[in-house]
């Protein structure tokens, strides 16, 4: 038999990082901030986005790229709250979005008519931390039902994120969760982390989140 060896010597993340840099340049040229939402499954990314699209969609053009391992359920939920295209990426088993998938999804989005882009990553606190998608910032979400020590258990995503959203605050009376302790753990990992405390269900804390996003949007809206 004839064996031949092909030398590669290429870093595993190199291609992804190249594409992410291209995506970042495209977004910056179009002045579109992109937020990459990362959390464990069930932390409330989709509901937070549903409420956000309904509220900010009144005065901003919002675009969404949403990833799921299987189904387009999240994309269908989100599409009900925006007249803009919701780009669904089904990863077919992969536990994160990569920059190539975002680049492909962006081809169908008119960035010239977009004020703010959301990327809803696959529910997972491990892999998405390592994959640059070209976003302006990663937003890590965790809910009050998950335990205060989530940041200590998954330090990489809390280190990589610039913003943290504590979700399901309406459940606080029913679960043994100390908010200040959780925030303290997160800031041990990343002292500069900006925190929002929200309940997308009741609306508690959502005003602050909307205000932050309006100020971040391409056409900064007076708030």
């Amino acid at each position: 038999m004839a064996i031949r060896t092909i030398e590669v010597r290429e870093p595993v993340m190199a291609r992804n990082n190249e594409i992410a840099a291209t995506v970042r340049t495209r977004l910056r040229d179009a002045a579109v901030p992109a937020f990459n939402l990362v959390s464990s499954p069930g932390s409330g990314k989709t509901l937070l986005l549903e409420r956000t699209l309904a509220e900010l969609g009144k005065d901003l053009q919002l675009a969404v790229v949403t990833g799921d391992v299987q189904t387009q359920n999240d994309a269908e939920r989100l599409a009900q709250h925006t007249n803009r295209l919701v780009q669904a990426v089904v990863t077919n088993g992969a536990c994160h979005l990569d920059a190539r998938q975002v680049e492909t999804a962006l081809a169908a989005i008119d960035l010239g008519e977009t004020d703010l882009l959301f990327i809803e990553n696959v529910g997972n606190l491990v892999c998405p931390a390592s994959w640059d998608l070209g976003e302006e910032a990663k937003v890590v979400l965790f809910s009050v039902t998950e335990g205060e020590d989530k940041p200590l258990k998954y330090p990489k995503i809390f280190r990589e994120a610039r913003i943290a959203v504590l979700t399901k605050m309406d459940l606080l009376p029913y679960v043994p969760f100390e908010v200040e302790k959780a925030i303290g753990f997160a800031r041990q990992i990343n002292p500069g982390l900006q925190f929002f405390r929200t309940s997308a269900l009741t609306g508690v804390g959502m005003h602050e989140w909307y205000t932050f996003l309006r100020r971040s949007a391409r056409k900064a809206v007076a708030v």
Partner: protein
Amino acid sequence: MHEMSVALEICRMAEERIGPEALPQLVEVGVEIGSDSGLEPESLRFCLEALLSAPPFANARPMLDLRAGDVLRLTYLELDDGNPDD
């Protein structure tokens, strides 16, 4: 970093390098993995073995080269084209 996502990326790189039609000819995949890469070598080996033994691959094996530092790279691909040696 989750090992399966890295294993999937290594398989994608292999496909990109040799093309989908040559994937069944792949017999060995060389990977350098650093002790500070954030990966568990045995888990990565397990994931690569699972992926490389199923279509579109035939029966390729991973060859991990453990190093110091945070290196993580695909170093070589070894193919058997099935033709007799010259």
